């Protein structure tokens, strides 16, 4: 169980932290226009199909379960704590000309931490949520609660542990890099995933290419990767995985070659990721593919129970063909020839 610096157990945080909803003791009937949706763009949150089913139910029976709202200081309308979907349906029904009122439990405005945790619950619903706002909010939660344990944070925020880890990776980058993912212009914004995918590559540089890191600095290498991305020499941020795959699957000789290519890749802004690393990765893919095909062949033949066949001559001849082909390939591989490039027969 995790403890905060102050020694308190954070799975059971102090009351003012984990009790975001303080009932105000009021049940009101509100028009949809008296309620405003979350600032976090909830219209993008919901799948159409379940929303339509809910809308149909509300059209027939009205809103049966009250939503939970609060009134921020200075705001005339109510904000939603729970019930975004019901509200979204009622707005649509109202636009269609139906008079709808929504029963709403009015509670006290949430505390700062509760409001932050609410932001998480909204972000968790988003289909294509941007990682950056979540990472910033997570940072505030971790600082405020003096908590860093992924399990505890996961319980508090509802984020999965891998999501938390991704946010943490994002936060390891200096602010000037994070800022590039906060650009309002989607055309110039660097996607948050860029940093997540680049992170292991930067670690690899730091571990294995100390001279380069000393020369350019980790941030200098990051800058070059950003330049490369902007120059469209990283077509997809997922291509960073090829670098790691190329390094991890190779033997010592290949590893050295990959590192040399990585050095070249960082220094040459024009060298595209796939062009640089596919040769290492493709060979591995061929080998994995060949092994899988062999296994599949054996399994398929076993399934045919060929030993019970009455007409064996044709089968025998076919198997001999396979054997001869396999043997020739084995000979080639043992002899160090390039494997299986012209083996179609």
């Amino acid at each position, binding site marked *: 169980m995790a403890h905060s610096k102050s020694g308190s157990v954070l799975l059971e945080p102090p009351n003012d932290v984990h009790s975001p909803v303080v009932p105000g003791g009021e049940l009101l009937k509100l028009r949809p226009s008296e309620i405003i949706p*979350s600032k976090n763009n909830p219209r993008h949150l919901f799948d159409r199909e379940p929303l339509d089913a809910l809308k149909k139910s509300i059209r027939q029976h009205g809103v049966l379960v009250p939503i939970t709202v609060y009134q921020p200081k200075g705001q005339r309308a109510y904000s939603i704590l729970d019930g975004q979907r019901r509200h979204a349906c009622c707005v649509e029904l109202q636009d269609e000309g139906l008079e709808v009122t929504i029963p709403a439990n009015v509670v006290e405005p949430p505390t700062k931490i509760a409001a*932050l945790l*609410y932001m998480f619950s909204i972000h968790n619903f988003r289909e294509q949520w941007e990682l950056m706002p979540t990472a910033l909010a997570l940072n505030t939660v971790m600082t405020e609660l003096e908590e860093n344990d992924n399990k505890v944070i996961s319980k508090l925020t509802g984020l999965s542990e891998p999501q938390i880890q991704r946010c943490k990776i994002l936060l390891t980058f200096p602010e000037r890099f994070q800022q590039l993912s*906060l650009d309002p212009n989607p055309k110039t914004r660097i996607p948050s995933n860029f940093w997540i995918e680049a992170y292991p590559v930067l670690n690899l540089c730091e571990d294995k290419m100390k001279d380069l890191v000393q020369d350019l600095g980790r941030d200098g290498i990051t800058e070059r990767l950003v330049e490369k991305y902007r120059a469209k020499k990283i077509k997809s941020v997922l291509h960073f995985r090829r670098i790691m795959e190329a390094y991890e699957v190779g033997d010592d000789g290949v590893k050295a070659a990959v590192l040399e290519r990585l050095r070249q890749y960082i220094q040459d802004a024009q060298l595209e990721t796939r062009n640089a690393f596919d040769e290492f990765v493709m060979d591995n893919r061929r080998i994995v593919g060949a092994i899988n095909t062999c296994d599949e062949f054996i399994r398929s033949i076993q399934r045919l129970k060929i030993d019970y066949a009455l007409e064996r001559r044709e089968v025998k001849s076919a198997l001999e063909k396979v054997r001869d082909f396999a043997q020739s390939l084995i000979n080639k591989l043992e002899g160090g020839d390039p494997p299986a490039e012209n083996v179609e027969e």
Partner: protein
Amino acid sequence: MLPQFLGRARALLRLRGYKPQPVTPKSISNWLNQFDRTDRRLLLDLLNRVIYISEKETRDLLVQRNRSLITELTRQGIPLKKIIYVQIDDAGSSSAAMLNMLKEAALLERRAYAFLDSKDVRGLHEATTKLGDGAIIYVDDFIGTADQFCRSRDFAAEYILETFSEFLLAASVCEEALYALGKRGIQARIGRLHSINERALHESSSLLDFGNKERLLELGRQISRRGSLGYKDLASMVVFYRNAPNSTPWLLRGNVFQKPYVGVLPRTTDLPPRL
């Protein structure tokens, strides 16, 4: 002859201080002389229907609305030090200029919590999470459809704590914008609501009689076949000392770079680049 003279004199008096290109007897003549003599009276009439908001008036509108908003917020438990003022666009934009003007005129410096750019989402996140609750006041001179405003605000809003109430302080807002603002829970404090009926060339306005309006629309189409009524056909008639909104009819603004038609109230971006 006399009505035209009076019309010109009235326009000169009303539109003085327009910064992108001063309105002078010559600029009015240059503008009118591009059209038939028979149309000039109509054009002058249109020009005199422009709602011109001078520097002083802009300042006064913003300061007054801001003062009453602060009083209202203080009464509701939000002191000035819990208010964040936000400009919508880049430095140099009208929003930034309005915020600076307000800051100086209302002596807000060091009294409000922060003055931020809506693009500074990290700053917004840090400020709102530090304060816990409070108000955000967006400041601008003019809001037309609110498209641009909502784009910037929606991006920033993801970083703002939900417990903050949001306000828009603007010298003038077109009535079309109110729905988009209301849907987001943004409470507008407006110096002057610009209704559709005030916009002589707007398709739903009944300010001009049918024949005159049709003639002016035809002249507008000579300048630009499409979109001669400005952005989203708003045909707005509010013009500020600093600039005319992009929803102003082209008949008043003239073509881009003022060729072939010159305008009497060109936007800064309509003027030819200075060498």
